[in-house]
């Protein structure tokens, strides 16, 4: 065995994700059944005890998030973030394609816990087939009666990475430009249409049924103690095995590359690995013997993020890759706040200059100053994270940059 541990994907390709009956046959909707017998507070306690932390990237305690929702608000919403836009990431799509009913069950449990009657799934515009799949899955679950009076509607995005940010996502569901809101107020207090709203990632919701079914202790005992459970990873780049895996959270990054990924293509050496999508830090080979969990990644200046693992071999031009990433952020900045709108634009300009051999050392210094300010002063996570891949490549591969300077 390669050390995979499949919880969310245990029945991948063995059941029809659209069919509630298939899911029920393999033990599905037991968690919801259990939750119906619990008080809302007990459900939240159980989730807290499981130590489940958000799988979207920020790693915030899910139980805590739910507990911020005011009990007595008359209307509340459960929103599922299916806008995975981090390049190299497709794990939420896989979870839907393999186990959509678990997502629905997770949302329904959340609805019970916070007292919501309506849920939305915001699916990125790139996944029209997932919208169809989910609508069928919802219909099937409704027919099976498992959701009772909880209603779920699927909304489709239209090509905006920033809508993965929870408040931009809310704006988009409201039919507006997907510009992030300032926080506070947090969505838990003032979210969709101004009412308390829980926004969680697909993977987070999909963990919930298993926590309820098997108990918080069981879940908490899997993987890293402070970030327990499993994580679905997607591998891309110069790797022999570019596919998805579900692993316990204490799995080592080096094992991801060499065991799951089957090592670097063509037997070449590793240059760097970027974890968490384009907003993630680049990790040099010397740091890869680290557990993938949130806190361990933080300790090496990286983040687990979406669980995308992008591997570059020794022949790769890291400045070119970083320039491409700078373009990504320039394209995806919503334009609301100054540091991000202008910063991503100028960052890309400077990176292009350097990549084309027209850059100077001054450009490099300017990038670092800009990077610092963007991280500290941008309005949302997009602008705060945008400079990280650039900054970390300069930090770890400065000589590659120096070679390209005028």
């Amino acid at each position: 065995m390669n050390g995979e541990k499949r919880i969310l994907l245990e029945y991948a390709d063995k059941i029809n994700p659209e069919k509630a009956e298939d899911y029920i046959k393999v033990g599905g909707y037991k968690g919801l059944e259990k939750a119906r017998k619990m008080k809302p507070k007990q459900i939240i306690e159980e989730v807290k005890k499981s130590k489940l932390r958000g799988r979207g990237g920020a790693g915030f305690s899910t139980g805590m998030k739910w507990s911020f929702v005011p009990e007595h608000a008359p209307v509340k919403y459960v929103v599922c973030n299916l806008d995975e836009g981090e390049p190299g990431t497709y794990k939420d799509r896989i979870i839907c394609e393999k186990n959509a009913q678990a997502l629905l069950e997770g949302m329904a449990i959340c609805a019970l816990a916070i007292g919501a009657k309506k849920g939305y799934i915001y699916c990125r515009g790139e996944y029209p087939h997932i919208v169809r799949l989910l609508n069928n899955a919802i219909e099937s679950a409704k027919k099976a009666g498992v959701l009772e009076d909880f209603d779920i509607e699927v909304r489709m995005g239209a090509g905006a990475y920033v809508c993965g940010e929870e408040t931009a996502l809310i704006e988009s569901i409201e039919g507006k430009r997907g510009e992030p809101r300032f926080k506070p107020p947090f969505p838990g207090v003032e979210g969709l249409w101004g009412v308390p709203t829980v926004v969680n990632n697909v993977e987070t919701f999909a963990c919930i049924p298993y926590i309820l079914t098997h108990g918080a202790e069981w879940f908490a005992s899997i993987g890293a103690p402070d970030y327990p459970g499993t994580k679905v990873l997607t591998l891309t780049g110069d790797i022999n095995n570019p596919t998805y895996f579900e692993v316990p959270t204490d799995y080592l990054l080096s094992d991801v590359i060499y065991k799951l990924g089957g090592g670097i293509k063509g037997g070449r050496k590793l240059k760097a690995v970027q974890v968490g999508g384009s907003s993630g830090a680049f990790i040099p080979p010397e740091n890869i013997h680290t557990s993938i969990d949130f806190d361990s990644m933080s300790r090496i200046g990286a983040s687990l993020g979406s669980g995308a693992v992008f591997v570059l071999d020794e022949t790769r031009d890291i400045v070119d890759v970083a320039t491409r990433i700078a373009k990504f952020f320039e394209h995806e900045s919503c334009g609301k706040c100054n540091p991000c709108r202008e910063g991503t634009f100028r960052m890309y300009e400077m990176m292009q200059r350097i990549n084309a051999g027209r850059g100077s050392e001054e450009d490099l210094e300017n990038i670092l100053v800009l990077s610092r300010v963007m991280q500290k002063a941008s309005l949302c996570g997009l602008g705060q994270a945008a400079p990280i891949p650039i900054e970390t490549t300069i930090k770890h591969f400065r000589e590659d940059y120096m070679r390209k300077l005028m």
Partner: protein
Amino acid sequence: MGKSYAEIIMPYKDKKGGLIEAFHALQREFNYIPEEALKEAARIFKIPESKAYGVATFYSHFSVEKRGKYIIRMCESAPCHVAGAGEVLKALEQYLGIKVGETTPDGKFTLELCECVGQCQAIPVITINDDVVLSVSPERIPEILKKYE
């Protein structure tokens, strides 16, 4: 003649915030949002035209300019980039005889760039309308596009 703009938009009228869904519906029909359709949507959703226009121009899938029957989007995110998206793009431009952002004179194809479409298991990737084409190489382009010609 197909459905009127209003007929396309009306089913979303009572969906709270359904403007984006209505835009999707218009695009399924026309591949872009015609000016009069956008005005109609603003009227039906009771929002100012300036706001509706702001929404339509925010999202990269929406266009307020006329586009071809098939929209080819080339993913150029980092994984596709290192997998050779650049060469594929060049080949696409050459084959279609247009640059990124343009539409072929016969109105068939519009070529656009896009970011990650979440199909990274076999890259580089292009999409043609809702279809995903995996593991694209310059050599495969004529064969891929044949289906749409």
